């Protein structure tokens, strides 16, 4: 399944001073995959939705923060 985030498991030493974060995440947003944008991509149905998303095309939309990332939870 495609996600806009990838994960990795850093090496954990028994001598690491902080509680280890076992899985770390990084963003791989859509512009890394789209290539030259094809014409006629589906658009958000209203101008307001496009404004709220920050793009006219859902395929270029990248949510943040992503749910699995450690730390504070939003929304």
């Amino acid at each position, binding site marked *: 399944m495609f996600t806009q985030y990838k994960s990795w498991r850093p090496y954990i030493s028994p001598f690491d001073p902080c509680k280890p974060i076992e899985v770390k995440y990084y963003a791989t947003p859509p512009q890394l995959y789209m290539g030259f944008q094809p014409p006629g991509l589906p658009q958000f149905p209203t101008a307001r939705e496009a404004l709220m998303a920050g*793009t006219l095309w859902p395929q*270029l939309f990248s949510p*943040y923060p992503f749910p699995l990332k450690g730390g504070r939870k939003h929304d």
Partner: protein
Amino acid sequence: MWYYEKKLQYPVKVSTCNPMLAKFLIEQYGGADGELAAALRYMNQRYTIPDKVVGLLTDIATEEFSHLEMIATMIYKLTKDATPEMLKEAGLGDHYVNHDRALFYQNASGVPFTATYIQAKGDPIADLYEDIAAEEKARATYQWIIDLSDDTDLNDSLKFLREREIVHSQRFREAVEILKDDRDQKKVF
């Protein structure tokens, strides 16, 4: 020339008086990967880049100025009615001593803006790769600011700005493809 329009590109709302967030946001005001650096970088590169991508550089540079205005609005709202005591607690005591509540082109650590942030190599591919990198770095900076902020209204505007970095990166990647393409060359020779 430019005309000013008396509106923000996207509504900016701030729900809590939290000057600490202003301190973080200054990174995107006068920092290396901030909106001022971006606007000036693209505006400056357009004079020596192939004509085909000048329109794009002009338009993205212009949009960056509207993002600079959004960041300024956030900082203004977060500090406007904060007392000197509150600013001190937020780590803005040294800022207050120098500038009161005036905005200043500096990064989150107080380093003043410098022209060395604005790369211009004159090689179109080098410059556009620089621009793509700048957009990705600005996107990352927005991520880290959102991570530190629990102001949902502010984060809404920051998510918009993060998404714009993605779209700009997409367009700069397309600009590279346009310059790589040899369709025009066949006509010339």
